[in-house]
């Protein structure tokens, strides 16, 4: 599980407003995909996905204010381990 956290954006900036989610809950995302756009002052800031996987939860809707350090969303990562699939049993 990877958390999407609003990073420090600069001195004196302690919050930003969510302006657009590029994905919906349940959709697959790749690491570095633009995940969410935020606005602050006269700047927009795109936050990329920290991992590949499924966007499983979004905690802030478009128009909501988010404080630096808060978790915006959760990505459930794809497992790096090979999945064991047993051979079908023939009757």
């Amino acid at each position, binding site marked *: 599980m990877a958390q999407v956290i609003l990073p*420090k*954006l*600069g*001195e*004196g*900036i302690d919050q930003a407003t969510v*302006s*657009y989610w590029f994905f919906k809950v349940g959709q697959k995302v790749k690491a*570095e995909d*633009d995940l969410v*756009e935020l*606005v*602050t*002052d*006269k*700047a*927009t*800031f*795109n936050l*990329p996905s920290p991992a590949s996987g499924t966007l499983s939860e979004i905690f802030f809707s478009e128009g909501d204010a988010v404080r630096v350090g808060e978790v915006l969303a959760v990505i459930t990562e794809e497992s790096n381990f090979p999945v064991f699939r047993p051979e079908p049993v023939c009757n």
Partner: protein
Amino acid sequence: MHFKIFDLGLLDFLQAWDLQKQIFAAVKNNYLPAALLLCRHGPVITIGRSGSRGNILASAEELASRGIFCYEVERGGDVTYHGPGQIMVYPIFNLCLGRKDLHLYLRSLEEVAIRLLFDFDLRVVRRAGLTGVWSGKQKIASVGVGIKNWITLHGMSINVKKNDLDNFSLIRPCGMNIEMTSMETLLNTQIDLDLIKTSLTFQFKKIFGA
């Protein structure tokens, strides 16, 4: 930060927007360290992410009769107007190479404009909470940026010519009832755009350390 300068002259807004995205991709993929695009646009209205179409005061028919198109763009801020009497500055800079600080970046753009205008003997100021550069209560330079992967898009417009301020009456600039001014209006003389570009480039190199 070393940057390549693109002096593009009069360029359609959409072409400049497209070029910004292409150069952004080149910077992101390390084909280019950074770039500074300088140009002017034909009359156009852009709406930033915090903007509202309600801040365009003119009717669609009036805009069409003047050949003015409107575009929603991925920059911060509200509604603004661009025309051939402005110098547009689009820095495509990777802030990871300096300080990852949006506030510092916005203030640095303002500082470039303040020093440029100082070179022309104009004393201009910042106003608390009102990003941009001001001569008293009149705005002379506007700032609005977009940042992806800490690489910058869009940037700043500086009002130069006296005869290109009328179209601001078609909008409520930045969503506020503010008056715009220009270098020629304040200095009451004609200004050579090439001189401004030279000074602008010099100040960018000083502020951003090229």
